[in-house]
């Protein structure tokens, strides 16, 4: 089995990994719907979105890896970063690694994340890093569609039958505490703001609350009350679920290093 790689702890690299890993792990979760969605049309839609997210993750991990070299470290390519990092070196928000759940969980999480990523890409389009700005310019269009698609479902389910409303409410209660982590800054955010790489994520919180809140209101769902619980995926301390995601995602490259088809 190939040894795991160690990644630069430079805040700019970490900032890009947070976004790239969030897209990557969430794509992995969404991909689980392939062949299992309630109708074939939605199956294709969810898989399309997973592939959009994979594309975004590839671009960002590639940039993170080349940035490592520019900063004087060892360069890594997208595959090394995706397949040869240990759980503690993943920087995704915890919410994306939670099990895919039912359709209410999937669509609420899609909606919340799509709005967040859309707001983030909009800001990253002005990044001081030209490559990141170019990635953002393309990704924002994808995120806008993901938002529209998921929001339709959140409203349909939340304001639907008694069963779908109850499941939506339960899904929101489950996910809500994990959203807080996204908007809490640390030194990585400060450095990104200072270098012009990207915004502090806390700067997106108000817009996210307004947009997600509007969807919830249309779906007749109440935002749950804030809790003290904080997830810590962005700093590498994950829930028990990420290990299983990585085991499945990495097994092929770990077993057949460099294998291609």
């Amino acid at each position: 089995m190939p040894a795991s790689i160690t990644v630069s702890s430079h805040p700019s690299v970490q900032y890009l990994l947070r976004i790239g890993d969030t897209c990557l792990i969430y794509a992995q979760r969404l991909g689980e719907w392939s062949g299992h969605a309630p109708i074939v049309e939605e199956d294709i839609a969810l898989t399309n979105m997973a592939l959009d997210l994979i594309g975004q993750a590839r671009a960002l991990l590639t940039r993170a890896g080349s940035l490592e070299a520019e900063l004087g470290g060892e360069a890594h390519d997208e595959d090394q970063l995706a397949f040869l990092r240990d759980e503690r070196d993943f920087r995704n928000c915890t919410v994306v690694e939670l099990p895919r759940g039912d359709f209410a969980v999937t669509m609420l999480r899609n909606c919340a994340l799509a709005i967040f990523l859309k707001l983030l890409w909009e800001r990253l389009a002005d990044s001081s890093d030209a490559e990141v700005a170019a990635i953002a310019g393309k990704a924002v269009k994808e995120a806008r569609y993901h938002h529209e698609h998921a929001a339709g479902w959140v409203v349909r389910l939340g304001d639907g039958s008694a069963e779908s409303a109850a499941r939506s409410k339960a899904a929101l209660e489950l996910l809500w505490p994990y959203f807080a982590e996204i908007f809490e800054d640390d030194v990585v955010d400060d450095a990104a703001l200072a270098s012009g790489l990207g915004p502090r994520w806390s700067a997106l919180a108000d817009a996210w609350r307004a947009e997600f809140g509007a969807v919830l209101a249309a779906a007749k769902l109440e935002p749950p009350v804030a809790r003290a619980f904080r997830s810590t995926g962005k700093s590498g301390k994950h829930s028990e679920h990420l290990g299983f995601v990585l085991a499945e995602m990495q097994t092929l490259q770990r077993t057949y290093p460099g294998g291609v088809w």
Partner: protein
Amino acid sequence: MSETKNEWPLWEVFVRSKAGLDHKHCGSLHAADAQMAIQLARDVYTRRQEGTSVWVVRSDQITASDPGEKSSYFDPMEDKVYRHPTFYALPKSLDHM
């Protein structure tokens, strides 16, 4: 009709491949409402860059000719080649038409 509504209605999908061309029928799909039909049509039928515009219409809103009347509807045209405008001598300047 008394059958239970446990299936979403069927929609016919029309895709325009590029500006200036017609929307062409490319298939059908199930969706709960028009908005969902447009979104799913986008995902099912234009994911390989096939389109720049999509129309959807409920399949039950289409009135079609009766296949049983095919012979009386369409066969009589078989021997009426004079309806094609190919028997006119065109001016030389238009000859390439």
